[in-house]
């Protein structure tokens, strides 16, 4: 039962307390770039969640079953990015062939995701934190994806409302988005230290 609790805590901690966007600044580019509309933001979030879970699983396996036994840790980051790029490519081809609706919903985001820092960042953090169990790795990656979705959707909702407000000209677009992000981070800091 302890195990389940650890997994649940890990998940919550990745979604809220150690949110990738708010505490590690990973995925800031799409967070600022794609967060103009809430449906786009959700599509991006869903695609990221899917890919990060998959690549968290794959890179954990590659790291523990191939790289570590062969003492090739030096090549870890090179290898991870190849695994991620390959996985993204395969997922894209598979979706285009078998799930046309789903492909149209978030297909356009998939190529962008290869260079999304959340994905590679999560794989590297899994390695650095020394996560030993496969299940834990999958749950933590899934949590980070959900956390990213939460962050980008909140941001998109705020920005949709902000369109109606009168912002000074020099603050328009990027500056006000960054300042909003800063205030949002301040709000999420309230959760820090809750778990782990």
């Amino acid at each position, binding site marked *: 039962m302890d195990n389940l609790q650890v997994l649940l805590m890990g998940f919550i901690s990745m979604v809220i307390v150690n949110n990738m966007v708010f505490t590690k600044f990973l995925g800031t*580019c799409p967070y600022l770039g794609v967060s103009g509309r809430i449906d786009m933001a959700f599509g991006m979030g869903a695609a990221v969640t899917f890919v990060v879970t998959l690549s968290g699983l794959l890179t954990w396996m590659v790291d523990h079953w191939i790289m570590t036994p062969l003492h090739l840790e030096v*090549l870890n980051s090179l290898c991870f990015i190849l695994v991620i790029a390959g996985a993204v490519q395969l997922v894209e081809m598979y979706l285009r062939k078998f799930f046309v609706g789903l492909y149209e919903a978030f297909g356009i985001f998939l190529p962008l995701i290869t260079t999304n820092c959340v*994905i590679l*960042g999560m794989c590297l953090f899994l390695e650095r934190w020394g996560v030993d169990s496969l299940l834990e790795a999958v749950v933590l990656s899934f949590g980070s994806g959900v956390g990213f979705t939460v962050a980008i959707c909140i941001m998109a909702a705020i920005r949709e409302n902000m369109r109606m407000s009168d912002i000074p*000209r*020099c603050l328009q677009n990027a*500056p006000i988005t960054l*300042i909003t992000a800063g205030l949002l*981070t301040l709000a999420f800091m309230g959760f820090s230290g809750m778990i782990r």
Partner: protein
Amino acid sequence: MAAENATFSSPRRTFLAGIFRENPTLVLLVGMCPPLAVTTALKPALTMGLSVIFVLVGSNLVVSLMRKMLRPHVRMLMFTVTIAAFVTVADLFLQAFSPEMSAKLGAYIPLIIVNCIIIFRAEACASKCGPWISILDGLGMGIGFTLAMCLLGTVREVFATGCILGIPVLRTTAAGGWFTPWAAMSMPCGAFITLGLILALVSQLTRKK
């Protein structure tokens, strides 16, 4: 397209574009993760900037040398592998010669691989231009990025601790002075807000011209 050609028309323009007119962080707004994450103080910001210059120049050179061999569908993969190779070199170099910095920057050095600036320059410049222009472009962009990072790092370090590179410039209350350090500046929210204000300043200045 016309503007792009003008940028690459002379070596000097290519070099200066990255620093001012097309500064990656302040104007183009690409590769925002490292500027926010590692600029808690000037020193990590500088280390990060130098690593990025190294990777950017190296990958631009290699991509430019193999630009005739690139095939559209594997292009991105080739860029990524080239970049990852240079990042691994930079990472190992830091681990060997500056272990404390390496520990402090942690996963953010390998994360240079997915920094949009580098892949963006490989795509926009190095895959079209010769090696000489590509090196200058990489150098210009890298210096522009480093300057922006140092600006952010300096502002945050001064307000968070009253020091620059660990040397006190403002007398803090703890040392008997007047300045109360702002803890928030060294936290994530400080990064976002400072960068937002710097961008606002830049857009204000460029608008008047």
